[in-house]
């Protein structure tokens, strides 16, 4: 059954498609935070499984790369495992769970706790790339808003949050302004991770498959979370300690550990948690 080397070009996509995606990536890096349209391909997995991220990863991968795939911070969820297996099979690249050893990291919902380095690429899977979509469903209109920097509407959303909940309750996909110009949706990462995007040494690439958009944040780029003067942005986390490694500064998941419904807090970044234990 495994005659895969014969059936697929390296990393599944044909070279023509990779060139098209790389052109979009270069454009995206040149205009930080700007959504570049690209001709998204059918991938052998459903849309909700990160086809945008997979295509970006496929266009970036070289034979010497070491790939790490995480979903909600963990390397061993179904989604992460299946994407990692996919690239092992169609690209034959080495894979790792160790954040520091990876050259390309594809992620859904988290940015690793360990500070990334200049020789790493972080690829985000993005379901909805347009941060203004919630209040303005017309794509023609949101494009004009980006072009003319008409971003008042983004604050209307935060205003609504405060007036309904007494605070900015947006906890995921918290909007940011990139390089003092474009407003960007950081994909559904928790807002706890937003500060990690600011002046990050690694390249950050975002792929939305269904919506056919690619955007990027080049290394060492200013990424600021939107807020009000009197309701400043807070990178909040559960005020708890990881019950596995004792970390007090990480993003925690609350997990049920037995059939009695006992709950436990532990690092959502499983590789980081393991490295702290030992």
């Amino acid at each position, binding site marked *: 059954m495994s005659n895969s080397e014969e059936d697929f070009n390296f990393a599944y996509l044909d070279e023509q498609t990779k060139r098209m995606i790389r052109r979009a990536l270069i454009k995206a890096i040149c205009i930080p935070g700007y959504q570049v349209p690209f001709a998204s391909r059918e991938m052998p997995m459903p849309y909700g499984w990160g086809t945008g991220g997979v295509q970006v990863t496929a266009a970036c991968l070289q034979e010497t790369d070491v790939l790490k795939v995480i979903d909600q911070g963990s390397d061993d969820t179904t989604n992460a495992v299946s994407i990692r297996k996919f690239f092992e099979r169609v690209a034959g690249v080495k894979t790792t769970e160790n954040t520091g050893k990876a050259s390309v990291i594809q992620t859904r919902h988290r940015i690793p706790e360990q500070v990334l380095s200049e020789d790493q690429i972080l690829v985000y899977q993005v379901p909805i790339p347009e941060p203004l979509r919630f209040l303005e469903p017309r794509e023609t209109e949101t494009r004009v808003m980006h072009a*003319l920097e008409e971003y008042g509407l983004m604050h209307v959303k935060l205003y609504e949050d405060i007036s309904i909940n007494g605070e900015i309750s947006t906890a995921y996909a918290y909007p940011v302004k990139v390089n003092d110009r474009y407003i960007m949706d950081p994909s559904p990462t928790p807002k706890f991770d937003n500060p990690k995007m600011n002046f990050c040494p690694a390249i950050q690439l975002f792929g939305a498959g269904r919506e056919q958009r690619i955007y990027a944040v080049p290394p060492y780029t200013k990424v600021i979370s939107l807020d009000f003067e009197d309701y400043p942005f807070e990178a909040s986390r559960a005020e708890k300690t990881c019950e596995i490694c004792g970390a007090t500064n990480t993003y925690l998941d609350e997990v049920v550990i037995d059939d009695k419904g006992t709950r436990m807090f532990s690092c959502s970044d499983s590789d980081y948690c393991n490295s702290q234990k030992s």
Partner: protein
Amino acid sequence: MEQILKAKAINKKFGDVYACNNLSIELYTGEVVGIVGESGSGKSTLLNCLSGSLVPDGGNITYLDRDNNWLDLLSLPEPRKRNLLRTEWAFVHQNPRDGLRMAVSAGGNIGERLMAIGYRNYSQIRAEATEWIEKVEIDAIRLDDKPSIFSGGMQQRLQIAKNLITKPRLIFMDEPTGGLDVSVQARLLDLIRSLVRELGLSVIIVTHDLAVARFMANRLIVMKNGKIVETGLTDQVLDDPQHSYTQLLVSSILKV
């Protein structure tokens, strides 16, 4: 008095229909001009051309901005045009759904223009929104309610607050009281008129209702089939109409 808006020889055709046929109008600072005429006479088309939401086939429109520059509206770059629409101008639609975000609270609707021009202090935005919702006679307790649960008259008042909060200079209104009960209409007109006077606004208001026109406008423009058939001071036009079409309009309202 000084002019604030000048339009010359505006033309707009839809297929074979001349919705605006060589129309010229001028608006003076602080003046309320009413555009009246039967359904289909081209009132809304003219208003939309003047306010930039429709591009006329020909003609020339200039506007005197806050800094005393005459702007050529038909060649004005899009960013400046949209900026004018958010700051110096306002547009009150007949259907409040066209002017409000129904999924956003009343306060969010009123505050949107402030946020659009750079307000970043929540308490300040909320304080100004509260002041304006009260100014249009809606109980401030409704600030966090969605406009979808407001009555038609309240929605219209909300639309007015949303538009006036940034203290525009020029307001376009297309049948602002159309579709409302007579008593609600009268109160709303009262409110609009007092705000217009208080803020010294220049207004172009489209209506097919001569009673509304008489109540609101200093000057009238009477349209028929895309043409201006008569223009003059409101009382003059309504009490002593010169053109046969105006005479017909006035007499038909008297019969009602």
